[in-house]
């Protein structure tokens, strides 16, 4: 350590440290602007001027290295004169109106002139007007506000090695910008956002609206992780894939979810709707990369990591083995509790093994992930229906009701009680259990075109049946994923959108058709639950069929038991306070409290309820774990044509081939495809590596 005196105070500094940072670290504030803690100091702005050892001329403290015994005066007359003059000169050519600036209140220049109490009015005033450029994706340029500190240029050129930004000249003078008037895409920008992060004024900012979606700054910077219900560290695992470390990618994913491969197949990928790459061309293929990583994770190094706490001797029963129940079981076991999962069906997995068809989610992939949970110490009983949770609670310290929504609902149509009228839940379970499906006949009408409706329709097409898929929604408002819609159409599903249902034709023992009419538009009144239709005159018709399957919603089925033991609302869902039910020590989570949702949401429910149960049992509820240490090289360099790199899609098997079997319709990315796709990532998270710059007011009034 080096000892020096700053403003009469003895300060210790590291060898090679600048006087500026030695002072700031010691709580002595020196104004500064062109200096950034993560960038090479240049000394251009001179706001950090100080006097050294009584010398007459002030020097910039950012480029002055500490020396033993050095005497620094930050407030000498010479230093103050230089500092004030420099600030006045900058302000003389900076727009004087601050209130309309996006950086108002967070601007370093504004903070500095306020604390220094100076303005540029003694000088010739000349705003340098540069047209605002909002044509680039993600990043807005308002270089009228540029003070030429060069931080963005140093960040872009030196820190990132992208070399897009430089000093440019136009009629207004010199400012930071893109040489030759190019667009960011044409200049080779990688949209990492480093320039935005280091800009002290409102010259380079996130495009309007990008930073207002979430309360947290980090979430706005990395929206993929923010959108993911489980908040998986997506940029980190994409980086690991790009660098050829699929095992690390899996470890990162497993920090948040115990079903990476399941999610790699069927996640509804909200992350991709948040992905900022989508503002440039198409979002990252995040889900597909996840699947690639798991299927290429040879070493499974994550297995040796993570916490496993001392046994507590506490017993927890988990009712239901869907993604929520099994996730909770997995973490509760890691927290030291003895967990028993009780499943009513002959197979664990809930909708993962008895709902979602094999062509989307191969059975062996689910079972492998469930097996790991069992291997970790979770006990499970199948064919075990819990009808009275109060009785169960007597044998356990805590009970989790994670029964999902496994009972299908039918619309109250005439004929809905006929023999050949089924619910999607039952049909999908039979299909997944490889039962003989011929009881449905040759022609089937499926009602409801959400994910579940498509699962039924596409499964039955694979049984050689003629499938009509009818729904109230108009063709452009269909609820199912776009992939389901296009692939289902290719596979020969006869879609009947914008239809309303009148009755099932036939006799109780023999369905002959579904009577429908065409609806030009419909509105749903949330308050009353009533649907108002505009009917097309004379459109009534009967679609001939041998059976009808309702995919029109699901419920818990709990109200069918005489007395399940916890209070239920009129729709059959547990009455809740947080995750607590009406009975002490009995919790509920997953679809059984949220209504039908997606696997990733159920997993996050499992994590959250785990924390609640652990705290109930006397623990701290802490399940965060690091399975892979992070490292990210900030020097990302140039990639020619980066902005135009197209999204790589998984290879889809030909429709006429895939309807002949139950095998996965997609082929996993090849290594090359995965690396190409991973290369497209903007690495938004790198921005968060920058040391946050503190405004004067945040130094706690040290001076």
């Amino acid at each position, binding site marked *: 350590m080096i000892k020096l005196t700053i403003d009469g105070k003895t300060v210790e500094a590291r060898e090679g440290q600048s006087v500026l940072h030695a002072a700031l670290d010691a709580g002595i504030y020196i104004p500064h602007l062109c200096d950034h803690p993560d960038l090479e100091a240049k000394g*251009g*702005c001179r706001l950090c*001027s100080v006097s050294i050892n009584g010398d007459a001329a002030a020097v910039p403290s950012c480029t002055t290295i500490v020396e033993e015994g050095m005497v620094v005066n930050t407030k000498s007359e010479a230093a103050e004169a*230089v500092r004030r*003059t420099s600030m006045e*000169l900058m302000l*003389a050519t900076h727009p004087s109106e601050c209130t309309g600036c996006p950086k108002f209140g967070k601007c370093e220049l504004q903070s500095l002139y306020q604390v220094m109490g100076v303005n540029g009015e003694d000088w010739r005033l000349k705003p340098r007007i540069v047209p605002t450029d909002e044509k680039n994706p993600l990043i807005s340029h308002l270089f009228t506000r540029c003070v030429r500190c060069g931080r963005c240029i140093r960040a872009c050129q030196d820190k990132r090695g992208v070399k897009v930004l430089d000093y440019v000249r136009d009629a207004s*003078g010199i400012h930071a910008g893109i040489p030759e008037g190019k667009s960011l895409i044409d200049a080779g920008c990688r949209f990492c956002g480093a320039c935005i992060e280091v800009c002290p004024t409102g010259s380079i900012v996130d495009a309007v609206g990008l930073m207002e979606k979430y309360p947290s700054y980090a979430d706005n910077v990395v929206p993929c992780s923010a959108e993911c219900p489980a908040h998986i560290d997506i940029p980190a695992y994409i980086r690991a894939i790009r660098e050829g470390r699929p095992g690390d990618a899996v470890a990162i994913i497993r920090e948040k979810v115990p079903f990476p491969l399941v999610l790699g197949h069927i996640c509804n990928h909200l992350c991709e709707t948040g992905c900022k790459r989508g503002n440039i061309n198409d979002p990252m293929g995040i889900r597909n990369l996840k699947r690639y990583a798991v299927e290429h994770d040879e070493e499974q190094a994550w297995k040796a990591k993570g916490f496993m706490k001392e046994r507590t001797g506490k017993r927890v029963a988990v009712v239901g083995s869907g993604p929520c129940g099994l996730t909770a079981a997995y973490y509760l076991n890691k927290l030291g509790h003895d967990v028993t999962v009780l499943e009513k069906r002959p197979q664990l997995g809930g909708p993962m093994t008895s709902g979602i068809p094999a062509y989307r989610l191969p059975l062996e992939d689910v079972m492998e992930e469930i097996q790991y949970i069992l291997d970790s110490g979770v006990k499970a009983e199948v064919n075990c229906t819990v009808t009275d949770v109060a009785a169960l609670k007597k044998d356990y310290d805590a009970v989790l009701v994670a029964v999902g929504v496994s009972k299908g609902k039918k619309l109250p149509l005439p004929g809905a009680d006929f023999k050949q009228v089924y619910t999607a839940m039952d049909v999908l379970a039979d299909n997944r259990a490889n039962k003989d499906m011929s009881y449905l006949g040759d022609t089937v009408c499926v009602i409801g075109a959400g994910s579940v409706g498509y699962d039924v329709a596409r499964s039955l097409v694979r049984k050689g049946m003629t499938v009509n898929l009818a729904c109230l929604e108009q063709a452009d408002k269909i609820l199912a994923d776009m992939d389901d819609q296009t692939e289902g159409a290719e596979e020969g599903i006869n879609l009947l959108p914008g239809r309303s249902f009148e009755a099932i034709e036939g006799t109780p023992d023999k369905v002959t058709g579904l009577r429908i009419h065409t609806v030009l538009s419909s509105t749903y009144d949330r308050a009353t639950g009533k649907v108002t239709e505009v009917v097309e005159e004379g459109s009534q018709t009967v679609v001939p069929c041998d059976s009808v399957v309702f995919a029109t919603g699901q419920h818990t089925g709990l109200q069918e038991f005489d007395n399940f033991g916890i209070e239920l609302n009129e729709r059959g869902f547990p009455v809740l306070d947080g995750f607590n039910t009406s009975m002490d020590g009995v919790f509920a989570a997953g679809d059984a409290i949220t209504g039908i949702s997606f696997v990733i949401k159920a997993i996050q429910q499992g994590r959250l309820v785990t924390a609640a149960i652990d705290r109930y049992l006397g623990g701290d509820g802490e399940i965060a774990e690091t399975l892979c240490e992070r490292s990210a090289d900030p020097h990302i360099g140039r990639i020619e044509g980066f902005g135009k790199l197209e999204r790589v899609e998984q290879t889809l098997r030909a429709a006429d081939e895939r309807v002949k079997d139950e095998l996965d319709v997609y082929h996993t990315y090849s290594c090359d495809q995965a690396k190409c796709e991973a290369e497209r990532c903007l690495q938004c998270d790198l921005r968060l590596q920058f040391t946050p710059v503190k405004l004067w007011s945040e130094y706690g009034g040290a001076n």
Partner: protein
Amino acid sequence: MNEKLLNLTDKQCPVNELMNYAKTHKCADCGKCVFGYEGATQLELTMADITMKRSRATDMEQLKKLCTMMVEQSLCDDGIELGQTALAMLDKYADDFAAHIAKKSCKAGVCKKFVTFHILPDLCIGCGDCVDECEDDAIMGKKKFIHVIDQSECTQCGKCVSACDEEAIVMAGAVKPRGPLKPVPCKR
């Protein structure tokens, strides 16, 4: 230091020369340091104001301090050189700067705002061509009368000079030619 700028001829105005020097200096094309770039900007803007009769009493003192800081605080030799050259000019041509600021006069006759235009009564034939040319209606007179320029209206554009076939209109610096204050009949 730029020696040429310290050896100006009688036809060169130091204010104008310093303005152009700052405007085209390397520092005006760089932007990497405040004292080089903004210093050059203020030098140029202040000089321009002086030539446009918009000088302030404090200009000289302020610029001397600025240039001293430019010498001390610029990032590279270019800014130092500009500061030194400007300081030396402010010193050597102090009288010229003072004349521009206090007397609003440009000895070299370069600063257009400080010159005046006059119609020589001996040469004017009262043709009226200059009146037609003047966009500011600053020329008084009628046919066969000696024309007179109204100095309060004249913007020193100089277009009348070339419009006069008799070469009766001249530009004047500190010394003004004599003539009538109002149009009078021509002698010729």
